[in-house]
């Protein structure tokens, strides 16, 4: 039994085939025993597929809580020491007590977790025939149904936290200062080019990296991942043959704003099969992003009337979902996107052979239901930086 990235698969060994045939038995006790044995060993492979296959929910760090305990995240320990006035270095004479940074524990973030369950019914005659692929396809279907809900929900959190982030932590401070937002616009409307990658990186550097009197030393304080539409990925590929400079030189000559990227850069893009990284940033293609696509609409609704910086940094304008799309940059090294999942009796994913009245002997069907309980949150909106183009 093994798994691939996107679906559940079984090895065709005599033992596996025998187990599947036993699941299809008309002897209820034998059938249930085999089904329960399968359920016991399948939870881990299914969970692995669930954690590997998706795009956006993969960006969330999984934290677990035990069944029967509150689903909360204590925020205090995660406050960055670089937050202004958080840390004080002091010195004193030897006698006396020491001061400390005290964790108040007052900011307990409540996360609403919810069950995501699916159930399937399989025909026993297919199992009696030893059809391992049939079993694997049904297991994959459980996975896909869970994944669908996970992707939709995690995307909602991602695309809502982005326009609601405020660099100075003051939610009201946007009306006259769009630079307090973590969303910028491209140099040229409808075009994504190297200059825009630069804009994202500079913008993010000015979002979290600096605090009064210091510069990051140890960890990476930069965008690690970019999420965008297939069209956006197309514009990345287009860097191989489109002009990339955005300003003329001191002496205006013909073609002054039509200079291509360096040969070696273009060659690298030509030769790259899928262009997974650029400027050491991982690129992710998300089919639901792009003009007219669902996540663009989610972002547009979340942004509402918030005015972002205009093209080339001039003026400001609201997001126009009919002609614009969002590219999302994430710092996955930062504690931000969290998936809080319940760890129950059967682990994080519960797969159970269903013995209900739907699956009696006469129906000649076998059922499994499975799922998990989890919730998604963003605990630091400033770990992202978006760009509208």
């Amino acid at each position, binding site marked *: 039994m093994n798994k691939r990235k996107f679906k559940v698969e079984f090895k065709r060994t005599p033992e596996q085939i025998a187990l599947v045939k036993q699941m299809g038995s008309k002897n209820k006790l034998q059938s249930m025993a085999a089904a329960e044995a399968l359920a016991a060993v399948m939870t881990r492979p299914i969970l692995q597929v669930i954690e590997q296959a998706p795009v956006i929910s993969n960006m969330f760090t999984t934290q677990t809580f035990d069944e029967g305990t509150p689903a909360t995240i204590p925020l205090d320990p995660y406050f960055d020491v670089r937050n202004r006035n958080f840390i004080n270095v002091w010195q004193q004479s030897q006698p006396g007590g020491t001061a400390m940074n005290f964790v108040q524990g007052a900011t307990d973030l*409540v*996360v609403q977790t919810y069950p995501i369950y699916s159930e399937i019914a399989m025909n026993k005659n297919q199992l009696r025939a030893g059809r391992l692929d049939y079993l694997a396809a049904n297991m994959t279907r459980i996975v896909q149904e869970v994944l669908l809900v996970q992707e939709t929900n995690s995307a909602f959190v991602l695309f*809502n936290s982005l326009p609601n982030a405020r660099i100075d932590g003051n*939610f009201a401070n946007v009306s006259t200062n769009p630079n307090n937002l973590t969303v910028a616009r491209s140099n040229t409307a409808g075009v994504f080019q190297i200059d825009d990658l630069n804009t994202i990186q500079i913008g993010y550097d000015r979002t979290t990296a600096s605090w009064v009197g210091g510069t990051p030393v140890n960890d990476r304080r930069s965008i690690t991942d970019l999420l965008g539409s297939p069209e956006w990925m197309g514009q990345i590929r287009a860097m191989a043959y489109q002009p990339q400079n955005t300003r003329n030189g001191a002496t205006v000559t013909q073609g002054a704003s039509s200079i291509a990227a360096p040969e070696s850069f273009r060659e690298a893009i030509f030769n790259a099969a899928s262009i997974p990284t650029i400027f050491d940033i991982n690129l992710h293609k998300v089919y639901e992003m792009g003009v007219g696509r669902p996540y663009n609409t989610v972002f547009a609704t979340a942004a509402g009337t918030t005015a972002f910086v205009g093209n080339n940094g001039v003026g400001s304008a609201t997001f126009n979902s009919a002609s614009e799309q969002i590219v999302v940059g994430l710092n996955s090294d930062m504690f931000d996107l969290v998936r809080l999942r319940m760890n129950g009796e059967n682990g994080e994913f519960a797969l159970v052979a269903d013995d209900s009245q739907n699956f009696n002997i006469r129906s000649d069907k076998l059922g499994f239901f499975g799922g998990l309980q989890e919730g998604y*949150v*963003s605990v630091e909106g400033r770990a992202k930086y978006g760009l509208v183009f």
Partner: protein
Amino acid sequence: MSYLTDNNTMPFRQYAEAEVLNFFALQGTGLNGQLVSILTGSQDPALSAGQYLTTAVAASYTNVWSTRYNNPRRVRPSQAGDTRYNAVGITLHTTAVYDENGNILANQPYDRTLERGFVQTGFTVPILARGIVTLKNQCVIGTPFPGYAAVISTGGNGLIEAINPAGAVQGQLLTGGYTYSGNQVIGKFLSYSGSAFGGYSQLKLEL
């Protein structure tokens, strides 16, 4: 959950689990034992799994996004004009924001709220479509009597009215100046009103 304050269904009941629907959330809050009808709009089956709202679960912090989860497929308390066809059944759990101790349910373990008969607002509430339940008299208008018809009350609020079918004229049930038709009958009462807990009765629900 206290049977005195948070519950309108008594322990005695008999039904098959297959008659319990887990598709809908209750609009707003409400004690169990409430007759509910389908709220039109947002009944796309694809929405059953639920989705996030933009309201914070509890305390709200800038740069932190943790919002409420919600099943958009809703039912509402049955009201005048409803029929047995848009009525779905009787809620088996109490939909609430706070428990009997005044603690917010969203801050408690999910399974802990369920096992006490609570459902957080916006979450799917189990609804019984057919079977026998024991309802407190708060759920019933009129005096329950064995063999009386149970109809959707014109008083709204998901109440059930006990009507003597002897007064039926061509399928029309007459009571208190109102006329009920056969398509508003949701079941029958099997008992008198018990004396404890302010009165209760057994209802055979047939939807």
